[in-house]
C-alpha cells in the first residue's frame, strides 16, 4: 500500500503506533524532564541556622523577663520557675514583631498580638507559634522551632 492510498479514515498500523507509542513517549519525556527540573530547584540541604538550638542556662534569665533572641527570632519568657518560647515571626508576611506593653506588634502591616500570642487585630491570620522548650543534660535551655506546642505548655525547672 502506497502512502497515497492511506487517505481514508481507517486507522493504519502506523497511525495507531504514532498516536500511542509516539505521543505517549513524547508526553512522558517532557513531563519527566519538567518534574526533574522542578525537583532540581528544591534544595535537599539547607545552610540555614538550625531550628533546634541552645539558649543558655535558666538563671541567665530574670524572673518575669521576656528576652528577645536576635539570631533565632524568638522571645523566651520566664515566669517563676517556668519557661516558654514564643515565635517573633509575624504570621502575616514574616516580619519580626516587637514587644509592647499589651503584647506584640508587627511594624510591617500593623498586626497586633496579645500576651498569649493570639492575633487580636490587623491582617495576621493565625496566632504566633509557641515552641517546645526542654532542658539539655548540661543544664541549658533547648528550643526546638520545629515543634509547635500549645500556649499552656511550660518547661518547669
Amino acid at each position: 500500500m502506497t502512502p497515497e492510498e492511506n487517505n481514508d479514515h481507517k486507522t493504519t498500523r502506523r497511525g495507531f503506533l504514532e498516536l500511542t507509542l509516539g505521543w505517549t513517549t513524547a508526553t512522558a519525556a517532557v513531563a519527566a524532564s519538567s518534574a526533574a527540573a522542578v525537583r532540581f530547584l528544591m534544595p535537599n540541604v539547607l545552610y540555614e541556622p538550625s531550628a533546634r538550638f541552645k539558649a543558655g542556662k535558666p538563671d541567665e534569665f530574670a524572673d518575669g523577663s521576656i528576652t528577645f533572641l536576635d539570631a533565632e527570632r524568638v522571645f523566651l519568657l520566664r515566669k517563676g520557675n517556668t519557661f516558654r518560647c514564643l515565635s517573633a515571626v509575624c504570621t502575616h508576611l514574616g516580619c519580626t514583631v516587637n514587644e509592647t506593653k499589651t503584647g506584640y506588634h508587627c511594624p510591617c502591616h500593623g498586626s497586633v498580638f496579645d500576651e498569649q500570642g493570639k492575633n487580636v487585630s490587623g491582617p495576621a491570620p493565625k496566632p504566633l507559634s509557641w515552641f517546645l522548650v526542654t532542658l539539655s543534660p548540661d543544664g541549658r535551655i533547648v528550643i526546638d522551632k520545629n515543634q509547635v506546642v500549645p500556649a499552656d505548655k511550660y518547661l518547669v525547672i
Partner: protein
Amino acid sequence: MKPSFLQRTWEGFRDTRVGRSIFRVGLPGSNLEQARAMVSSFLLHMQPAKVSRRALKPTTTLGLGLISLFLLLILVGTGVLLMFYYVPGTDQAYATMKDLQYVVSAGLVVRNMHRWAAHLMVLFVMLHLCRVFFTGAYKAPREFNWNVGLGLFLLTLGLSFTGYLLPWDQLAFWAITVGANIASYAPIIGPKLKFMLLGGNVVGQSALTRFYALHVMVLPGITFLLLGIHLWRVRKDGGLAAPEMPVDLTESLETGSVPSNKTYGLMELAKGTSLQVGRDPEDEVFSWPHLIFRELLLFLAVVAVVLFLAIFFNAPLEGIANPIHPPNPAKAPWYFLGLQELVSYSAFWGGVVVPGCLVTALALLPYLDRSRKGVGRWFARERAVANTIFSLCLVAAIVFTLIGSFFRGPSWTWQVPWKTPAAAVSEEH
C-alpha cells in the same frame, strides 16, 4: 548643495570594498532607495518601508511602547556594566554596591541610570498598556499580541522585583521577605513555591543566587523572546490599530480625505476641489527618513531624561540587610505599594485573589470584548462602558498605591504626609 564633510566621509567609506560589503544600500537618494534602505537592512527591516502620516502623529500612540523599548536597551547596557563589579554573595553584595557608589569611575551614574530606567520602564509599560486599552487596539486581530504584551508587563515587574533584592540592603531584604511570603499564600502550591523561589525557608544566600540568575539571565531571555514576537506581530497584524474608514464615501471625498482601500482609480470619482496631489490613498510617507528620524530623536530624548535623573538624583541605598529587624515601616517598591496596601487588609485576598483576577480579566479581555467599534481612537464613545470599567480599576490602583506610598507611617498606621509622624516609634525597644 555642496555635500557636507560628514556626507563626503561616509560616501568615501561606502565606496571602498569593505564599506560596500557591510552596507548593501548607500544613503538613499530616490524613493526606490528609501524603500530599499528599510527592507534590506537587518536593523531596519522589522519596520515597514512606508508608514501612514497618522501613525507618525505623536498623539496616536504617544510613543509609549517605543519609550519602553528604549528604556529596556538602556537597562541592558547599564546592567551589563554593573555585572562587571557586582558579586551576588550575602557577604559581598552590599560592599560592591558601596564600591559602585564611591570607588568605581562613573559607577554611581551607571547604577543610578539602571535604577531610574527600571522605575521608568515599569511606569511606561503600564502607560503603554493603558494607551492600547483606551484606543481599543487590543481587538481582533491583535488579541494574541495583547496577551504577549501582558506577559511582557508581568516580566517587567518580575525583572524589577528580582533586581530589587540584589543591593542586599534593608529595603531589599524586607521587600523580598514580604514578597516571598505573599507568594506562599497562593492556594495549594503556595508554600512550595516560596521554598523554590528562595531556595530555602528564609531570604539568604540561596535566595540571592536565585534572584540574580533570574534577573540577569532567565527573565531577560524570556523578555527578549517575547519582545521579538511582540514587534513581529505588530507588523503581521497590520501595523498600528487604525479606525475604520468612514462609510459615507461621497462625504469623505468632499472633505478631501480618501478611504483606505487602495482604490487607485479614485481620481475620476473625486468631486472636491483638492485632488490628492502627492498623496496615496493611505496617506503614507517613506519610513526613511520620516519614521527613522523621529525614532532616533525619541531615543536621544529618553537617554537624556534618564541621564539627567541619574546625575541629579541618587538611587536609594539603605543600611546593610539585617535579617533580625525590619525597618519601620517596611515598604515594597512603589509599583507594589498598592498591592502591599491590599495585603495589609488580607494577605490571601489582597495578595493572591485580587491580582490574580485582574491579570485573568486582562488576558481574557480581547476574547470577551468582540465588538469592532471604536478601534484606533482615543476614548471612543462606543467604548464608554469598557473605558469606564478600566478607568475605575485604574483609579482604584492609583489610590491604593498613593495610600501605601504617602499615607502609611510606622507600623503601617494611617498618617497624613504633610504632618510629622507621631512618636509611633516609641513602642519599639
